[in-house]
């Protein structure tokens, strides 16, 4: 009848491996905006500001992004980035717990926050005349949060419930967690954003305070304002609010443990009585927009689009339209990550017994590209689709704010975002073939299987 919406403090990118589900095409979301439209500057304390004016409706999206995500957590404290995100709503020296929520609600605003591997963001969508107040309250909780055991206890229960809801009760999510932990052997992307249950249960006030003091400073934050505002007014308000927060100590470079050479293919299998139709997903570690060189990230975006980006893709045409092998099949690449990221192909057969055949068929499509490359026409159409998606993204100021916030907290710049279409246009068919050959190697693939469990019944 009515599905529960994704609710408060939602967790971004908890599962990377969503079979058949629709996932936002992160890379395609990077947007094209003429340079003069977007302002980008630093406040005196080092806080970066991006302003994206759009005067169509008197609405503004205000976001503060911190360069702190689950991959920045201390070992053994998994889940603290996300748990701390929840605690940011608990009141400060000058604002009682609940006051922030009440204030946003009173003006009809939308608010929430999300945590991912590389960033945590807090956002409100409001009418422009409330922007100054929002900035004042957001700047206040950047440094003046009061954390007591009274607020921490129930909120820890809330995030434990959140984990039960999102992960424990869902075989898909449990599998994708363990595939991720297998794909990455050393890098902290192997740890789920929401945290491991046994570590989450032990998170406490000291952990939260330490995380807060380390990462929540203006020089580790990016302010993004998109909507019905003018740049000069935003700059003045930002200087009067965020600008008054003392600069924190310089943070060390975000250097995390890196992956060793991978030499094995690995499989991870989840059997569950709730599953009737088997499915698989295969992943590889590949460069992200920050770590890639020579256009490899753009080439991986195009490879994902050509191989499995939609109904015109090779996988869909070959295995859904021209054959009845798959009920769902596709590929995706999430390039908006600070460190090396993953490339995924996935599929579910139409016939329960035909998983192995489908997996072989998908592998054959990859081999075809590795051997023969992609056609000029395919490449051009894929470029058009990705660039078009950026024009469509401009329709929503909130999605523009998301694009810039995610880019700037994962090592990209405003200019990188703006020149993405140009860089994409320059990619050749040979480059697409080259990344397929170099990265999608069966010998080091990690495959997750979601299978029916015939041995148990409820």
């Amino acid at each position, binding site marked *: *009848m*009515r*599905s*529960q*919406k994704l*609710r*408060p403090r939602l967790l971004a990118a908890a599962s990377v491996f969503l079979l*058949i589900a629709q996932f936002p095409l992160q890379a395609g979301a990077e947007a094209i905006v003429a340079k003069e439209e977007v302002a980008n500057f630093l406040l005196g304390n080092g806080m970066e500001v991006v302003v994206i004016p759009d005067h*169509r*409706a*008197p*609405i503004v999206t205000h976001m503060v992004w911190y360069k702190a995500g689950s991959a920045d957590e201390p070992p053994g404290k998994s889940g603290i980035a996300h748990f701390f995100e929840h605690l940011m*709503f608990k009141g400060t020296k000058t604002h009682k717990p*609940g006051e922030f*929520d*009440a204030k*946003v*609600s*009173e*003006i*009809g*605003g*939308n*608010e929430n926050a999300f945590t991912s591997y590389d960033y945590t963001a807090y956002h409100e969508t409001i*009418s422009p*005349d*409330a922007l100054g107040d929002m900035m004042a309250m957001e700047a206040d909780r950047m440094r003046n949060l009061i954390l007591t055991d009274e607020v921490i206890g*129930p*909120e820890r229960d*809330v995030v434990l*419930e*959140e984990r*039960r*809801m999102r992960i*424990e*009760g869902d075989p898909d999510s449990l599998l994708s967690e363990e595939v991720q932990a297998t794909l990455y052997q050393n890098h902290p992307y192997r740890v789920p954003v929401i945290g491991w249950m046994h570590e989450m249960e032990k998170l406490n006030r000291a952990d939260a305070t330490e995380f807060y003091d380390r990462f929540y400073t203006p020089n580790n934050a990016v302010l993004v304002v998109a909507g019905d505002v003018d740049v000069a007014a935003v700059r003045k308000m930002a200087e009067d609010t965020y600008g008054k927060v003392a600069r924190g100590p310089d943070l060390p470079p975000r250097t995390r443990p890196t992956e060793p050479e991978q030499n094995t293919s690995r499989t991870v299998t989840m059997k569950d*009585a*709730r599953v*009737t*139709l088997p499915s698989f997903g295969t992943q590889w570690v590949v460069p992200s927009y920050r770590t890639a060189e020579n256009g490899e990230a753009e080439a991986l975006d195009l490879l994902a689009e050509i191989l499995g980006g939609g*109904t*015109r893709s090779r996988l869909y045409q070959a295995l*859904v*339209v021209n054959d*009845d092998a798959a*009920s*769902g099949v596709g590929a995706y690449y999430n390039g908006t990550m600070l460190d090396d990221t993953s490339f995924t192909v996935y599929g*579910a057969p*139409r016939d*329960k017994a035909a998983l192995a055949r489908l997996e072989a068929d998908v592998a054959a499509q990859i081999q075809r590209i590795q051997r023969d490359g992609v056609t000029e026409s395919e490449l051009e*159409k894929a470029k*058009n689709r990705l660039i*078009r998606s950026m*024009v*469509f993204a401009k*329709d*929503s100021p*909130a999605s523009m704010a998301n694009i810039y916030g995610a880019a700037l907290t994962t090592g990209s710049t405003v200019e990188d975002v703006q020149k993405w279409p140009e860089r994409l246009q320059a990619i050749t068919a040979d480059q697409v073939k080259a990344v397929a050959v170099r990265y999608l190697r069966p010998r080091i693939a990690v495959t997750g299987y979601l299978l*029916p469990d015939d041995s148990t019944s*409820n």
Partner: protein
Amino acid sequence: MRRSEPAGIAGFASAAIAGVFLLCATFAAQAAVKIQEVTSQSGVKAWLVEDYTVPIVSIRFAFDGGSASDPAGKDGLANLMTGLFDEGAGDLDSEAFQIRLDDVGAEMGFSASRDNIYGSMRMLAENRDAAIDLLRLAINSPRFDEAPIARIKSQIVAGIQSKENDPQTEAGRRWLRALYGDHAYARPDEGTPQTLASIGADDLRAFHKAAFARQGLHVAVVGAIDAATLKTDLDRLFSGLPERPELAPVPDVEQKLGQEIRYDYALPQTSLRLAYPGIGRDDPQFFAASLMNHILGGGTFTSRLFREVREKRGLTYGIDSGLVNYEHSAALVIGTQTRADKAAETLGIIRDVVAQMAKDGPTEAELEAAKKYVIGAYAINNLDSSGSIATTLVELQLDDLGIDYFERRVGLINAVTVEQTRDAARRLLSVEPAVLIVGPPSQPAKEAN
């Protein structure tokens, strides 16, 4: 799969969540979206918001009649049909159509809710003409060729089969049967493998002809297009459709409340759903009920249920209540999920919060805050992109609220008194609800009563 959430429900929920404080800003917001009513030469009407900021055009439309109008034994027909509009139309077969659509750079989507069939297209302004031409073909001349029918059917069947052992799916099915009995609302929108097997091209053609008619058509267009051009496009798209729809009428239905439906399954959490009587969109008490619902469990972090169940006790990650309105039935539904061993306690707290609201209703201060939210949130939730504006304008037409609704809405909300919200609370919440409990069997929920 190729279905999207029926926008009607979401649109309604946000429209339903309807404050004074922001009066000036709100008027400005509403003024900013200037709606023109455009009537084509052949008499097709559309609401247009003309805006050239971004070089795209969004069109959205709805026909009366959706899955609830599936003929007997042909459950899933409307849903299947909406998967076939980009699978060949006019002279273009499936592949030719999809290549053209991709080349012109347009995104086309069709979906069925229980009460309506929706279509939409988002296109680059420079390719508008070619894109509209494809949409015209899809609306007027879908081919319903055998191969795509078989393929889309088998995808839907795979989707159904993939959830055969899913406790939430099965519980949801039982819930609908318990609430709606043998009414069409109890049937699964996507059908069953058996009913889908019985649907052929002739059924699809007949249903298309019966449902796609000019009476019962509601159109909204937003973006880089002027009224004169739109008039021509409206005729291209819709003037060739039959005048009247010929679908069998769907009767109104009262939900059967006062029952408990349990579905036992060893899960880490127990999910709880409570259905109370709802209120029609045209009921004079609608806004009073909507404000009361907002205070009880509406969409912010400040509701009574959110405070009691989540903030104070940490029993859940999410809890909310909402007014759910279909064409022939309405409900107020509360939903949450909690640790299996806390299910009885959580249900008890929800019942206490509801009982308190039924008895005393909202306070003046709560109502004041709710009004402010509901007034201010409208533009933010409904007008933030051309797609969402088009969606909102179609929903306003479906709800028959009038083109001046944006101007009238603030007044309607401000007119609600605290007594009216207390009446609404008594009316909706004094009734024993239908309760759905999905989770491990060992937790006797009766204890909570």
